[in-house]
């Protein structure tokens, strides 16, 4: 009896350690952003659609918004575009685009072809704003609340599942836009 006690205790300890590891391991290849729960980085970028305007975090203060990082060179962005169009139409939350390291004319052509779901699009040619947001691959989508705090970060394309399971439940009023 006694000679099994120690190995059994060690085995139980190992099970606990591994269980914690499995429960806390983020999805494969997805890195938890240190930005979640912290103030969203400020930005002021030229607008893609209006040469006289700037898209800035200052204007968005006091509002919930989704910041979607995309680029015409990004294959997954094309895949998520129809979902973005639905979110744009639903009007539950403003969708702000961050056109990351892209050519303006390519981006405008893309919007003409696929539609424009964004309320405003900031152009980040040198990628500095994307670095401030800790972006490491498009598409990425950030949910920001009225206090300007990043509530959630989605890495990869926005899908119906991520919209209904991750984004809608985090919004204040029980939003009905479940499509």
């Amino acid at each position, binding site marked *: 009896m006694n000679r099994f006690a120690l190995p059994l205790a060690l085995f139980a300890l190992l099970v606990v350690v591994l269980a914690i590891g499995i429960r806390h391991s983020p999805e494969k290849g997805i890195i938890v952003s*240190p930005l979640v729960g912290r103030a969203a980085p400020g930005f002021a970028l030229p607008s893609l659609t209006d040469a006289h305007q700037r898209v800035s975090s200052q204007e968005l203060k006091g509002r919930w918004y989704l910041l979607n990082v995309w680029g015409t060179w990004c294959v997954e962005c094309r895949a998520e575009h129809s979902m973005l169009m639905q979110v744009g139409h639903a009007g539950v939350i403003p969708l702000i685009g961050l056109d990351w390291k892209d050519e303006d004319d390519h981006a405008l052509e893309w919007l003409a072809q696929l539609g424009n779901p964004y309320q405003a699009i900031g152009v980040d040619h*040198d990628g500095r704003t994307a*670095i401030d947001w800790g972006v490491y*691959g498009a598409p990425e989508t950030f949910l920001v609340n009225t206090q300007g705090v990043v509530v959630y970060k989605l890495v990869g394309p926005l899908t119906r599942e991520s919209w209904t399971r991750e984004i809608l439940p985090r919004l204040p009023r029980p939003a009905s836009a479940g499509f």
Partner: protein
Amino acid sequence: MGATRLGLVLAVVLCGTGAAYGIDATSLADPVLEARYLQLTHELRCMQCQNQSIADSPVGLASDLRREVHDMLLAGKSDEDVRAYMVSRYGEFILFRPRFSWRNAWLWFGPPLLLLMGLGVAVRIVRQRAALVATDPDAADDDGRA
């Protein structure tokens, strides 16, 4: 004829590899800054390719991050400033050499601790066996077989 061909092949192969290593063309005039730049870009992870440092990666984001390191060093920031800047945006994962913290303490101390425990168990078993052999009158002639 054969030698010329071999020479051509060698020339192509050698030139090819030369080009492949030239990912980062940045150089700083100050050799001290240059050394720190090389050190830092080699210990920061390329978040897109994950098993390469930003010094080795041809990806766009890696070159953007190299530019940030370059600019911060020229602006007189310390190595720790550069690391803190990267960690605050990308998390600790960007460091190839993770910092010590209580959250990862068991990773540092776990293996030596397990090794010590294993040694302890081994020593105990050996001692017990030795004691058995010493008290067993048959041990000398049948070397343990029943």
